[in-house]
Structures are given as C-alpha cells and as structure tokens.
C-alpha cells in the first residue's frame, strides 16, 4: 500500500468517523428517556425500600412452583430485563415460569445499620413466606444472581424446607481465589475504616472499582467504539441502556458491605462453615434441594472457580453445573446465551417439579 492509498483510507475513515459522530450526536439529542425493565410486573409486597414484584405471565402453561429471583445489591436488577429482546425475565416467562423478583432499592443513610440478617432472614424470608402463602405451597424455586446468588445459597442453607430448587448464576461462593482483581483488592482493603468513614458507601466508589478491572477498555475504548455505532439509533439506544445500567449503582449499606467484605472476601468464612448471620451458623451441607450452578467462563468479576465451588460444599446429590463462554454481563445480554439459557433453566426445573 502506497502513501497515497494510506492517506486516502485515512481520509475516508476520518470522513466516516465525522459522519457517524454527527449522526450519533443527532441521535443522542433525540434519543429521549432511556427506559429499562419494561416487562410488565406488579408490586405485591414491600418493606420500605425493599420490594417484591410479580411479573405478568406470558405463557398459558404455568409452572406450579413459582420462581423467586434475587439480584445483587451492588447494581440494579434491570440488567435482567434490559430491553425486550435482551430480557432473561421475559424469556423465563415465555418458558412458563411464574416469576417473582426482589428489588433491594436504593439504600440511604437510614440503612446505615442494615445487616445481612435483615436482608436474608427477614426480607427474603418474608417474600418467600408471602409467595408460599399466596400459592398454598411449602417451597419456591430460588434463582440468585451474582451477590444475590450468595444470599440465596445462604438462605437455602438456613431454610432448606422453603426452597424447592436452587439456581445460582455467576454467584461468588468461594473467595480463596485471586482470579479476579476485586478479590485481590478486597483482601487488602481496610474495610472497617471504609465503613466507619462513609457509613453508607457511595455506589460510585464501588462502580469505579469495577471500571478499574478494565481501565482502558471501559474508560476509553468503549466510548471510541461508540462513535462507530451511534449513527444507528437502535444500537445507540442499546448502548445507552447498558450505560444507564452500569452507572445506576446504589449506595451500599455499611454493615452489609462490612460483613460481605470481611467475612466473605477476606476470611472466606462461607465455605469454611464459619459464616454466621443473626446468630445462626451457615452450613452449606444443609442445602439438600437440587442445585444448578450457572457461571460464565470469562467472568472477570466473579471467577468461574468461585461460583462452581458451591457444588463441592452442598449436601445434595442432585447437583449440576452449566457454563457459557461469556463474561459476567454477557450472561444476561448475549443474544446467543439468552436464546438457550431460559429454556435450559426451565427444562432443569420441570424435571424436578
């Protein structure tokens, strides 16, 4: 390639870049409100900021055992219902699942003393009791995502009689690994000082830690690539939805974060059988119901080994793992993954109803 050609190509690229940028800015200006989590749902139970939703059925044949989804507190559940064609919740509904979901809400100064015990033994338990009462059943199917998966495993160990089947998705269980930067940093951090100084730890601070996992990609390259795609309004809308989710980081209740960071990240008490909430020791061997452990092969937030170790510690013999060649977020937004994830979950559940 001679210099003339190179120059010509560079000019073409610059022209395209400029055109995309112009069109993209126009699209941005007219994009309007970014809407997430559009699948219809009904608020059925609440305790202050924490809410329980039930999604409207999308199938005639409904699974007799309802499913409760427990998402993490560090981000919003809206990731599970990002947009109609990228919605794990919608896919589960299409498979005939009767889906309930816990929304932890946005913590504020009044949640300074909120504990894991309040979240798991109180609110989660209240929600499950509510569902059981409404459906006249003894136990529900529990699907915990990320930190919500850790909560779900803890709940299942403490209340096995109320969980028919347990599914964990990209859930951190064993923190001995250093395969994730978060695990490395979390172990060195003076958590007590952090909590004592902030009380409620700003979500932005947590979010910046996530950004530092890929500092150049997430702070530079991503926005550069955006120029190439923002000319297409649909692609731009998808990008904005994702951005909206990424930076929608609730502040973290201090005592919850303190126990999460110290007992789990730093001391790995859950798999050692030393973890306690509300004065009760959590023994993963008490998880006697069928367990499906789903993880992402390229997860940089929750390393696969941290997730799948759960199966080594549970008491049940009916246990299975399922993995996808994606990253942490890709598990929920990858079209390929989403096309098979919900059907496989439903199939696994239907065999155990």
């Amino acid at each position, binding site marked *: 390639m001679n210099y003339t050609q190179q120059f010509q190509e*560079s000019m073409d690229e610059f022209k395209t870049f400029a055109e995309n940028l112009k069109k993209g800015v126009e699209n941005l200006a007219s994009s309007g409100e970014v809407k997430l989590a559009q699948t219809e749902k009904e608020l059925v139970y609440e305790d202050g900021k924490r809410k329980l939703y039930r999604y409207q059925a999308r199938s005639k044949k409904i699974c007799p055992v309802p499913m409760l989804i427990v998402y993490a507190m560090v981000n919003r559940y809206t990731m599970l219902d990002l947009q109609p064609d990228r919605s794990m919740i919608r896919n589960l509904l299409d498979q005939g699942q009767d889906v309930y979901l816990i929304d932890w809400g946005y913590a504020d100064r009044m949640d300074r003393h909120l504990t894991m015990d309040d979240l798991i033994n109180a609110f989660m338990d209240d929600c499950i009791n509510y569902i059981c009462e409404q459906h006249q059943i003894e136990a529900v199917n529990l699907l915990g995502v990320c930190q919500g998966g850790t909560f779900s495993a803890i709940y299942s160990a403490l209340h096995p009689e109320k969980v028919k089947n347990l599914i964990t998705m990209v859930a951190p269980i064993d923190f001995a690994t250093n395969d994730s930067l978060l695990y490395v940093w979390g172990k060195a951090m003076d958590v007590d000082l952090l909590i004592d*100084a*902030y009380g409620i730890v700003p979500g932005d601070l947590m979010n910046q830690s996530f*950004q530092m996992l890929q500092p*150049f990609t997430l702070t530079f390259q991503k926005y*550069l690539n955006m120029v190439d795609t923002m000319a297409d309004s649909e692609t731009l809308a998808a990008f904005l939805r994702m951005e909206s989710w990424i930076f929608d980081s609730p502040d973290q209740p201090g005592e919850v974060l303190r126990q999460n960071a110290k007992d789990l990240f730093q001391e790995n008490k859950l798999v050692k059988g030393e973890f306690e909430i509300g004065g009760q020791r959590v023994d993963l061997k008490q998880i006697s119901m069928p367990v499906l452990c789903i993880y992402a092969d390229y997860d940089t937030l929750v390393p696969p080994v941290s997730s799948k170790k759960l199966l080594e510690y549970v008491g049940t013999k009916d246990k299975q793992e399922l993995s996808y060649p994606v990253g942490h977020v890709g598990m929920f937004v990858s079209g390929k993954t989403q096309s098979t994830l919900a059907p496989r979950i439903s199939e696994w559940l239907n065999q155990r109803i």
Partner: protein
Amino acid sequence: MQDFFKQQAEWLKTWQEQQQNLTKQYAAWGEGLAQGAPGDFSQQVPGNFEELVKAQQELFEQFTGFGQQMQQNLQQLWGDKLPSELLRQFNFNLLQEFYKNWLGNMKFPGGMSNPFMPGQNWTDPASFLNDFMKNEHPFFSTFSNFNMADEVQKIFGMFGMLQGTKMPGGDLFSQLFTTYQGFFNQLANTGSSKGFDKLLETFNSWKEQSDKYLLAPQVGINRETAQDFSKIISLSLAYFESFAKMGKLIEETARKSGNRFQAKLVERSLNNEPPIKFTDFCNLWTKENEAVFLEVFGSEGFANTQADLASAGLRLKMQIDKLVEKMIDQTPIALKRDVDLAAGEIMQLKRDLRQSRKQQAVLAAECRIAQDAAAANEARFVQMEAALTKAQTLAENAEKTTREEVAASEKRFKQMEAALAKAQTLAENAEKTAKEEVAAGDKRFKQMEATLTKVQSLAEHAEKSAKDTVARPSTSVEAVAAAPKKTAATATKKTPAAAGQKTTKTTAQKASKTTAKKTATTTAKKASGTKKSSGSPTK
C-alpha cells in the same frame, strides 16, 4: 535540595515559635473575649506581635463580619423556631476570628504569600505549594514543563469531594484516574522518570519536620480544637505520602505499558501489519496498555498501595468530618452521628416490630386453634346440655316412677304390714284359740280323764260286778268286757304326755297338738264308743 530543606526547616521553626507565642497571647486575649471585654480589640492584641500580626484589625473585622453574617443566617433560619436564650448561645465570632487570625497571620519565608490569608484559601494547600513552585525551588526543576500546582489542585479538589462537596457527575476515583493520567502524561512528555521519587522524598522530609511541630504540646483555651486541626494537617501529609507512592507506581506502570505499546507497534510494522486505521491504532493502544496495567493491578503490591491510599484518604475524611461536626455541634443542624443513631434506633425498632409481628402471627394461629377448639367445645357443650336435659328428664321421670313405685311399695308394705298384723292377730287369735282349745282340750281331757277314771271306776266296778256275776254265771262275758278297758288305758297314758312335752306357738303345731288331743280324745271317745258300742256304759 539542601536549600529547600534548610528553608523549610527555618520556616517550620519560625512557624512553631509563632504559634507558641500566639497561643500564649491569644489564650489571654481569648479569655478576655470570653468574659465579654468591650472595646477596640486591636488595642488588646499584644504589642509584641506587631511585626508578625499584620492587618490584625482588618482580619478581625472580616471574620467578625463573617460571624455576624452566620449569626444573621442562623436568626433567619431558626429565629422563629428556637428560644432566644438558646440562640444567644450560638456565637460564631469567637471561634472564627480566633483561628482565622491565628493561622492567617503567619510570617512565611522567601517572600511567599501567606496561604491562610483571605483569597489564599487556607484550607487549600495547593495554592501554598504553588507559591513554593513560583519561587523556583530546585526540587521542582524536574517538573520543568509540568504544572504541579494544577495537579495538586486536583488532589485537593478531591479533598473537597471527600468533605462532601462532590460535584455533580464527578467522583473520587474517576478524578484520581484523571489525575494519574495527568501526571503520567506530563511526566512522559518531560522524559522525567524520577518525578515521584523526588516528590515522595520531599513529602517524607516535610512530614518528618511537620510531625515534630504537630506533636508539640498545644496550649490555650482551644487546645483540643487546635489539636484537631493539627491532626488534619498531619493526615493530609500522610495522604500526600500515600498518593505519591501510588503515583510512582502508576508512573512506572505507564512507562512499562508505553514501552510495550511501542514494541508492539514496531513488531506489527515489521510484520507488515501496521495499524493504519485510527481505530486499529487505538485498539492496539488499549490492549497493550491494559495488559500491563492489569498485571500490576493484580499484584499484591498494588493492592496494598491502593489500600494505603484509600485508608489515608478515609482517615483524613473522618478527621474532617469530626471537626465539621464539632463546629456545628451547637447549632440546631442534625449531625451525621445523630442521624446514624436515629437510623440505628429505627432499624432496631423495625426488627422488634417484625419480631412482634411474627409473635403476633404465632399467637394469632394459636388463637385460631383455641377459637376452633372453643367452637368445638361449644358444640360439645350444646350436645352435652341436650344430653343433660334428656338425662334430667329421664332422671325426673325415673324419680317420679321411683316415687310412685316407692309409694306403691310403701302402700304394699303397709298392706303387707296390715296383713301381717292381721296375720299376727289371726295367729295370736289362733294361738289364743289354740291355747283356749288346748285349755279346753285339757279341760275336756281332764274331764275325759275324770270321765275315764269314772269309767274305769265304773268299768272296774262293772268288772267287779261282772266278775262277781261271772263268778256266778260264766267267763265269756268277762273277756268281752276286758278289751275296751285295755285300749282306754293305753290312750290315757300316751297321748296327753306327748301334748304336754311340746309347747309350740304356731297355730299348726297348736293345731297339731289340738289334733293330737282331738285324736286322743277321738281315740278315747272311740275307745269309749267301742266300749259303748260294746254296750258298756260311758256316763
């Protein structure tokens, strides 16, 4: 560098001396103020401070004005909500003017302006550093084309965020990152690789000197607050130190990643695959830089440095928070710790409420069970009541029947009694009759005996007569007369004896006796008859 340290040491020494003197003088002055001494404050300022304390009156007026403004604001905000006695307690003047004056009247070496003077915001040491640099200290010569002041300004901008003045859309770590980048870019441009080393060295030395001052005993009426301020300065220096360490690490990493990127760029060019497009170039830049940074980020060293930096910032934040809370403690503004305490209590109440609800549910369930049991008992009670009524009716009927039966029985009993009495009477009568009959029988027997005796006598007489006769005519007539006489003798001897031995009360016995007697009588009669039939005379 030697000059710098010498200069710094002199400055610190002067500063310390000034503070010690000022503390003593202001202690007395402050006490005067506290006692409400009127008049021109400038006249009360110790004269030996004239060289050090410049524009004292102006500063005082300035801070007094500030205090008055605060007082006015307080009055506007809370005047109608708080009692006037309480409002009078909030005097902003004293604290403000005391510290502002104290810090604002320092004399600095080398022609530097006082960072604590108005317009040189004393809470922002960046301007102070800027002054240092403007004086072209040898230390900063390494940053020949690097505006150190701007970078430090950013750091203190972050202090502002830590203090709660976070700007919309801004956050601590993104600012940190930007700052790192700024350092990196500038350092890379200048080709200096020792910037952070020197900065760190300087901060360490500065901190050592400062610690000596900061650890010196404080005196005066506001000793505690003075120490709080001192601690902030000390913690600021610790933060600088940590920041410099992090900066050094980032600088080294950036240099490595830059080298790697350049190497890859050359490698691709040599392989005839140069990144011609801008996007290709950026992708390569991102990929190669990120690989190096992630390797460092994953190291224990980075984790510890980052943790140290965060801890230093957090300690500083906590100290600033503490001081701010102290400053507003006397105002009606709710403090963070008050909110935290209230939140804790509310949370505990929520837990208690939930527990109570749980207990209530258990009790309600128990209540329902009890109500069901009560209903069942009620039903059983009704059944039992009906059964009882029935039983009572039956009992009453039975009682009635019994009474009737008893009455009938009594009647029958009386009848039987009467019958018995009658029977007894009859028996008695019969006995009496029997006795009478026996008596009559006896009498008759005796009569018969007498008669018999008479008869016997007659018989004997007859016999004798007969014998006499026979003796005269024949013996056959004597034989015939002898038979009845023997029978009568047997009856006379046996029958009356048996009746006399058995004295029975029953009628039958008596009757039997009577019969026996009758039999005897009859036998006797028969005997007598026989005798009669034989033709012998009975009378």
